């Protein structure tokens, strides 16, 4: 049913040499742009989260002429702002045996052996520099009394390597990054374009040479030419409609690049976060995450008896099942996210769930409060407890929290080589928008690390190499080029078609339906039959969408329905690819759990013989017939083994 390329076009460009010296050798060997020449290059950066903001600021510091775009009214609101728990770094400040090697090892294993070793090693290596950079920016990390940095342990790790700023680590790191970005705006190296949505990539002579975007206030379609394009527009978890992502998070930029030739890797690798506030009703717009750090002190349990509807306080200790501690004694409540999520689903599916819907488990702090005192618990989690109380009307100081898994992060994304360049020369992809470092499952506190590593410490080197090597400077293009005009024409046609659609159903209704299909069949557990159903359902829904959607308003004004319509149209295509990728991958790994492939204990069962590769899909002008290219993964340093957290 799927088409596989006769010859894969993928070349990861992994440098030679032992893994410890690949990055430093590579940096010594790649080409440089001289300081005097940097200002002659224009670089477009799309997105202002940790990856995009860090890239724009750093490239500005180097002297490039940077144009930075975001959909929000200001770069400070990019969704990185919502990350709560922390950021990993192999500093070994705690003297507990951490090292670059261990962080590398944990990340490869945590990703269930589906990430590229060389990229992961570089990420672990750069992690320490990130903390230095952020501390120097004045990020108010948690400290010990003596003034040194504090750490905590985080899901899936046996060392304390997570740095944090209360429950607002993402916000503080982003504000640090934003401050560096604003400094460059003041210096004149970076020009900001807020409230712009990228709708197309312009490719000229096979190279990324600009973007076309919509001004979200005036509705004008605008063109921008450049010598390279850096995309850092985040993941696609909002395809599920209900997720922990911000309501405007979307996949449009990466999907439009995919349609221009960038291969999309591992779309089925989606992360369902174990600790979110359960769904309350149909008008709900999003799900709220409760930081994974809560699992450091909170104990997860369900009643041993099925359908036990007693309030938690009336269920005695010996009638509770602390199932994570029981099944995974070595890691207990700190097992990786995919494992914790599936365990919660299993408990609820077998009738042990709690709350009105039966789709929730308890996360209980009673023991922690007894052991540490209420003040210490408030100190660690106070803002999270307040948030939970505000939403549910229940105090976690008195009652256990009710939690359930929700879509949170997507490991898949545009395929990139070691230089973070996609299959379109000149188009670089950073952060969650690419596929590179987390394999089939991301460990907690690793997303912030990857975004900042890509932005502060990888792209400043590899982009320079591309610019010098490609000699794009000899071939400047302007927005008068016919490729821009063709792009503007196509975009205008699509927006006109959308606003002109006068059907019966709103965009939100379609998004909700698509989300339902994906959650039911391409969510925490998948099987071939369900995936085939999902593919049929999505195709039918997509057809109906174009016939029967109602957008309204005009394309020449601020029009939220139009923005959402374009995004949902893309999700309708991407959703099918997620299902197809999940269908073709006849194994379970990390966040991709196929019910047909599990161990007797119900854990993910990989098939390294047949699926130890990155599956990257090529668009073919027919959303249902993409072509698969494979990048074989080799594990020379961390040997393939079944993950065990027992």
């Amino acid at each position, binding site marked *: 049913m799927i088409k596989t390329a006769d010859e894969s076009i993928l070349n990861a460009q992994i440098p030679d040499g032992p893994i410890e010296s690949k990055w430093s050798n590579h940096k010594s060997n790649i080409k440089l742009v001289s300081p005097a020449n940097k200002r002659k290059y224009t670089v477009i950066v799309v997105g202002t989260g940790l990856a995009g903001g860090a890239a724009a600021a750093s490239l500005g510091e180097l002297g490039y002429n940077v144009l930075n775009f975001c959909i929000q009214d200001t770069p400070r609101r990019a969704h990185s702002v919502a990350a709560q728990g922390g950021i990993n770094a192999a500093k070994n400040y705690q003297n507990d045996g951490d090292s670059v090697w261990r962080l590398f090892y944990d990340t490869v294993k945590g990703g269930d052996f589906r990430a590229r070793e060389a990229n992961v090693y570089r990420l672990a290596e750069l992690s320490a520099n990130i903390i230095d950079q952020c501390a120097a920016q004045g990020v108010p990390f948690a400290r010990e009394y003596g003034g040194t940095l504090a750490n905590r342990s985080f899901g899936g790790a046996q060392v304390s390597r997570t740095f944090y700023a209360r429950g607002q680590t993402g916000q503080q790191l982003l504000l640090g990054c934003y401050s560096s970005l604003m400094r460059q705006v003041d210096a004149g190296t970076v020009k900001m374009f807020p409230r712009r949505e990228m709708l197309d990539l312009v490719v000229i002579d096979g190279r990324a040479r600009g973007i076309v975007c919509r001004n979200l206030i005036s509705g004008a379609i605008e063109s921008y030419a450049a010598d390279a394009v850096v995309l850092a527009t985040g993941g696609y978890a909002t395809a599920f409609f209900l997720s922990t992502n911000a309501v405007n998070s979307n996949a449009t930029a990466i999907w439009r690049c995919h349609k221009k030739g960038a291969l999309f890797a591992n779309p089925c690798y989606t992360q369902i976060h174990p600790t979110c506030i359960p769904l309350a009703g149909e008008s709900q717009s999003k799900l709220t995450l409760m930081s994974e750090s809560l699992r450091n002190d909170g104990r997860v349990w369900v009643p041993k008896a099925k359908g036990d509807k007693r309030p938690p306080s009336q269920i005695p200790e010996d009638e509770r099942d602390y199932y994570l501690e029981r099944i995974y004694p070595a890691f207990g409540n700190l097992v990786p996210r995919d494992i914790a999520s599936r365990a919660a689903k299993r408990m609820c599916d077998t009738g042990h769930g709690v709350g009105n819907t039966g789709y929730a488990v308890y996360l209980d702090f009673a023991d922690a409060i007894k052991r540490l005192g209420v003040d210490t618990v408030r100190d660690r989690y106070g803002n999270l407890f307040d948030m939970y109380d505000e939403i549910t009307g229940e105090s976690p100081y008195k009652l256990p929290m009710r939690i359930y898994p929700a879509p949170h992060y997507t490991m898949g994304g545009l395929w990139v080589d070691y230089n973070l360049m996609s299959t379109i020369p000149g188009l670089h992809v950073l952060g969650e928008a690419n596929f590179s470092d987390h394999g089939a499952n991301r460990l907690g506190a690793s997303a912030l690390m990857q975004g900042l590593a890509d932005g502060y410490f990888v792209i400043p080197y590899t982009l320079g190499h591309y610019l010098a090597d490609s000699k794009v400077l000899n071939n400047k293009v302007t927005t008068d080029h016919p490729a821009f005009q063709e792009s503007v024409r196509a975009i205008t046609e699509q927006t006109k078609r959308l606003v002109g659609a006068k059907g019966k159903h*709103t965009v939100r209704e379609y998004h909700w339906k698509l989300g339902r299909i994906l959650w039911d069949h391409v969510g925490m557990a998948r099987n071939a039959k369900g995936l085939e159903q999902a593919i049929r359902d999505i195709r039918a829904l997509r057809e109906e969408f174009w016939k029967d959607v109602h957008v309204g308003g005009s394309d020449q004004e601020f029009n939220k329905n139009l923005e959402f319509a374009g995004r949902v149209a893309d999700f309708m295509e991407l959703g099918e690819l997620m299902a197809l990728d999940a269908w073709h991958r006849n194994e379970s790994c990390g966040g991709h759990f196929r019910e047909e492939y599990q161990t007797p204990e119900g854990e993910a069962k990989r098939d390294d013989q047949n699926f130890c590769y990155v599956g990257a899909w090529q668009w073919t002008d027919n959303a249902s017939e993409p072509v698969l290219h494979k990048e074989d993964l080799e594990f020379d340093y961390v040997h393939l083994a079944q993950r065990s957290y027992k």
Partner: protein
Amino acid sequence: MKVKIKVWRQASANAKGAFKTYDVDGILPEMSLLETLDVLNEQLTKAGEDPVAFDSDCREGICGACGLMVDGMAHGPRRKCTSCELRMRHFGDGAMITVEPFRARAFPVVKDLVVDRSAFDRIIAAGGYTSVNAGSAPDANSILVPKDVAEKAMDSAACIGCGACVAACPNASASLFVGAKITQFSLLPQGQAERDRRALRMVAQMDKEGFGNCSNHAECEAACPKGISISNIANMRREYMHAGRVYEEHAGGGGAG
């Protein structure tokens, strides 16, 4: 629940605006005010009317995008709560809820409830940073920051840039926003090198943007969803006065030739 939403409608920056009242039915107490606006917008879209434009993104009180005057209060009647966190259980069944955009000369209306807060970005660009390029930072533990100092800096750094302080202030002053950023850096060793320049430049930019001055109403603190204290404003003034003195001394000293 059934509620009436009286909302400010304004087609564009230069259009004349007016209040319009809508009935919204089928609201659950655990829904947020913004989800109620979502329901209203679905209703309007289906009726072929223009939906109410409002900014919103994370819907968990951290991005700072949403900012509404709810019943005359910035972010509504709940303390330490953003508009997106405001639940309908705090309003009675049948309640009339008045929703307006943040109003300040420096925050012009874009459409309906959406305002332009880019003045805040320009204030940060004037000095709300430490000048450290990527790659040049020393080891993080070489800069010791006592725990209580880090905690105080974090209290100031918690600002989400929503602009509620401006909207709540009778003078439309941005002093709490500016004071919080100046204070964060004035407390930390990393902020010392540019301490004086920062205070002078950020305050000058705030004035240039057309924000009013502070006259100690303390409405900003009451409206701030992150509970940022007006002591940040007192600190901003100390920093500003100190910076002014230092710069005068420097000016008198002459250049290094």
